[in-house]
């Protein structure tokens, strides 16, 4: 793992600058989160930069949760996907800054999560959920019946990124993608 703080925040998430970068972005867009396979790395907002020089590709991703084992799998999947497309020399590095937040997740990603049965994270920029010491988060809806009458069962779920909730209307338990 190469970890660094990206000094140049403006360089982050550069759009396709040329045809080859565009092709790379398209290839990378097929790489999915191994734990939540409906989300691409781009949906998740972890793909921060792609650059290519003399056939050497450098991909920068930002880790989600510190201990998320999916990050290693993502790095491997990126290398495999690019290798299959003929790029032999690929470096995947992790940049810690700017710190990943669930606000990086795309709207498309949020919708895919909901359809998949996971309540998407509430937006930090419109709520103080992640900083609220009570842990009581407003604005979570049941992905089954859209009710907002939900209750927290546990702040920890089946993976590092999820909390466990229950809908008080349809009584179904569901995963909530934690807002950080």
């Amino acid at each position, binding site marked *: *793992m*190469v*970890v*660094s*703080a990206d*000094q140049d925040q403006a360089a982050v998430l550069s759009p396709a600058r040329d045809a080859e970068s565009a092709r790379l972005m398209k290839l990378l867009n097929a790489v999915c989160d191994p734990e939540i396979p409906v989300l691409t790395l781009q949906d998740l907002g972890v793909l921060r930069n792609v650059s290519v020089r003399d056939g050497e590709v450098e991909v920068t991703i930002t*880790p989600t*949760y*510190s*201990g*998320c*084992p999916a990050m290693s799998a993502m790095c491997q999947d990126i290398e495999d996907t690019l290798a299959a497309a003929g790029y032999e020399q690929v470096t995947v590095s992790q940049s*810690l*800054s700017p*710190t*990943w937040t669930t606000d990086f997740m795309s709207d498309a990603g949020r919708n895919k999560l909901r359809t998949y049965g996971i309540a998407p994270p509430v937006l930090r920029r419109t709520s103080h959920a*992640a*900083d609220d*010491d*009570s*842990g009581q988060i407003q604005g979570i809806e049941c992905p089954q019946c859209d009710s907002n009458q939900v209750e927290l*069962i*546990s*702040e*920890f*779920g*089946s993976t*590092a990124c999820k909390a*466990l909730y229950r809908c008080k209307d349809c009584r179904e338990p569901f995963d909530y993608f*934690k807002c*950080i």
Partner: protein
Amino acid sequence: MRANKTDLVNYCIALGDDSLTLGHRLSEWSSNAPFLEEDLALTNVALDFIGRARMFYAYAADLEGGERTEDDIAYLRDCREYRNLLINELPNGDFAMTMARQLLVDVYDLGFFTELAQSGDANLVAIAAKSIKECRYHLRRSEEWVKRLGDGTTESHQRVQDAFKQLWGYCPELFEMPEREQRLLGEGIAVDRRTLKKNWESVVHKVLKEATLDIPDNSWAISGGRDGIHTEHLGYLLAELQFLQRAYPGQQW
């Protein structure tokens, strides 16, 4: 201004050791917790700590310039080279002991990482920013458990009270400043741990009071982890943690 590289490497390794030892202890609860949700919670928190250790070790390895990898740092050092706080290496004890330790450490960590986020070192700032987010929900949980156990049944009250008594003397070490850290402090890199004590005491005392628990006496104190002088428990912890790499050097999953 460039801090002494060796000091910075050792600072990162000590911070990584704090996280790895406690993360390993928490992982020992896997499949042994009182109920399923708690099993998931303990192992999730363990992952956060182990992930944090990786970030510190990776940065240390990077600073060293390729002499060692993050895995070498974790798996190929013996007790005397570990620099973690003693409280983090103590056995889990019962569930009350585990949650009492988490409270003491979580309150401390939130204060520490909030300060580290102001460091003059960009990589430490980035790791701190990530850690703060996790410390918040760790603390919410340990605080809630201490209150539930303290203000619970006679037995749970007694167990968590005993736990705080047994852990109390390990707390002064949290606020010690080894010489290398004082040098880094002078360079605007390290956190002045001494300044964290007042707020730590005020938060911990408040939670203990709400939990109907007595504040233990400051009648004893023990330290040494920062100099590699550990309790007898660390050797057993490392024997398990490092077994695979010791038995099959270089083995990968």
